[in-house]
């Protein structure tokens, strides 16, 4: 590199070249290059004139940053303490120095006031420009050594910071991805559970609908393990069953031959058999009553009120004689009523005067109709001839109760 005057862009190029060589060279040569750069820079300073001052501000920045940069890296490059008191300008001849330590130090000291003065916009008039420096009319590119150095530092720091941030973000991203994967798996498992429960619930709700068959068929694996296996794979029926029913079913299955067990045969007949058996089992095992207990209670209460209404209105319609002796004696009616209602109330009916208040008659009517209904409902099958009814009732009570009549 030749020392000498250079326009702005050339200066930049030169500095870039110096910096490049500084960094690419081996350690031993860095000091020499630093000295070269220093000499170059001092030469640059000597070119500046007052006239070029506005443009020179950029030079100043560039110069400053470059000096700072190399000062930090090489002790020989040091331009010394910027707080020195010398204010006189230095003749240009002094600026071109050899690279001996002592004069370097002196020149360094001498240059610092120049830098100061330049920072204060004060350039000595006597400074002779042996050469003309054409300022680069491009202020926007603004690269003085100082600012360049600063910018470099800043960029490096930023780079380092960005790199560490990137690493941190990478790690965070990895952990987040892992968490996301785990959460997705958990969600899948939960969905499967919910689906299963929903299917089970809808199965039990549907009751004996054909949909049951379809669903149950899906549950069953191709080969059948007999009733036992099928039984377990029918969640609809299972859900409705109580423990006692299950026991009874087990007993039943143990006693009866298991018709469907082990008969795979052709798939068609197997399916039909399955369907038939399922239907039988389901109808048998269905515990869902058509009417609820509350509905039955309501039905009985409605019946009671109907009977009351009839008794009240019919009693109102009737005209009663007041004097007992003039009443027609109907022996048969009396006898029958005694049988049905008992002697007490019959006596009251026949002896009391109901013309004014026939309430007792109404009560008697209610009583006799209630008795009639209760008797009808106590037979096994309403309307059936008594012999058959008795037999069936006996069988049922024997079966249902503990065998005691």
């Amino acid at each position, binding site marked *: 590199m030749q020392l000498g005057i250079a326009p702005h862009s050339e200066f930049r190029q030169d500095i870039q070249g110096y910096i490049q060589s500084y960094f690419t060279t081996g350690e031993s040569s860095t000091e020499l290059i630093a000295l070269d750069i220093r000499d170059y820079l001092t030469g640059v300073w000597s070119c500046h004139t007052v006239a070029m001052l506005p443009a020179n501000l950029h030079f100043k920045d560039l110069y400053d940053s470059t000096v700072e940069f190399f000062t930090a890296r090489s002790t020989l490059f040091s331009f010394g303490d910027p707080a020195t008191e010398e204010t006189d300008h230095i003749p240009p001849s002094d600026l071109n120095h050899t690279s001996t330590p002592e004069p370097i130090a002196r020149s360094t000291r001498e240059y610092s006031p120049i830098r100061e003065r330049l920072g204060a916009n004060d350039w000595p008039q006597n400074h002779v420009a042996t050469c003309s420096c054409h300022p680069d009319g491009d202020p926007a590119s603004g690269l003085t050594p100082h600012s360049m150095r600063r910018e470099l530092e800043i960029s490096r720091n930023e780079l380092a910071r960005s790199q560490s941030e990137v690493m941190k973000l990478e790690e965070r991203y990895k952990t987040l991805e892992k968490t996301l994967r785990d959460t997705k798996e958990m969600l899948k498992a939960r969905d499967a559970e919910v689906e299963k429960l929903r299917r089970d619930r809808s199965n039990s709700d549907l009751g004996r609908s054909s949909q049951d068959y379809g669903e149950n068929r899906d549950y069953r694996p191709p080969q059948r393990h007999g009733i036992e296996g099928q039984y377990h794979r029918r969640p609809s029926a299972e859900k409705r069953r109580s423990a006692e029913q299950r026991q009874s079913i087990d007993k039943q299955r143990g006693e009866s031959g298991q018709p469907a067990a082990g008969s795979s045969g052709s798939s068609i007949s197997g399916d039909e058999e399955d369907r038939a058996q399922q239907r039988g089992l389901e109808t048998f095992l269905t515990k869902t009553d*058509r009417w609820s207990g509350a509905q039955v209670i309501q039905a009985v209460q409605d019946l009671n009120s109907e009977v009351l209404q009839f008794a009240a209105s019919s009693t109102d319609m009737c005209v009663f004689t007041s004097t007992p002796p003039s009443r027609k004696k109907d022996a048969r009616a*009396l006898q029958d009523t005694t049988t049905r209602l008992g002697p007490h109330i019959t006596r009251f009916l026949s002896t009391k005067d*109901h013309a004014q208040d026939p309430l007792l008659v109404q009560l008697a009517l209610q009583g006799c109709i209630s008795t009639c209904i209760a008797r*009808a409902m106590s037979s096994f099958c309403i309307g059936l001839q008594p012999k058959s009814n008795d037999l069936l009732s006996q069988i049922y009570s024997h079966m*249902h109760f503990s065998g005691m009549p």
Partner: protein
Amino acid sequence: MTVDSEPQPTSSRWRSLTHKFVHSLNPGLQDHAFNELVETIFRWSLDIFTVAGGVHAENGTSLKDSLRLRFSTQVQRIARAVCKLAQVTREEIMSTDFEVLAIDHGGIFDGKRMADVFGEYGPSRGTILCTVELGLSAATRRSSGEVPSVEKEGAVERRLLLQPKVVLESVVDVLYPS
């Protein structure tokens, strides 16, 4: 040889099937039962009116004719409700055995099992005259595991769902204070 009794679902199942098949074997059984019920209600009511001194209807027609004329619909409605209730409790309800209750006349009043219609009008006295409102009970066969109070296998659990309402002899005191 004694056969052990069956668990609830089995006996219910037998009851339901038998009831259905009895009807299918006797197609006219349903109508016959219905008609018989209507007739019985009319006959018994008329007898009571006769015993109580009822002579005729307000408009002068005989009681017998008036009853049938005016109350056919009502009585038929009652009969139909009874048949329906019987069918449901026999065929449709498997979980238990429903029983419609009426207390026999001459029995002793038991406040736990029945209610005195005129109980709030005066002290309860005497025997039961008649049941004026039907009650309802449910008898369920339980296995020992289900109900803690059941000691042995196969005991029957009875529950009173609706208390029958009765009138006692004390009603006379209320209605005919001397």
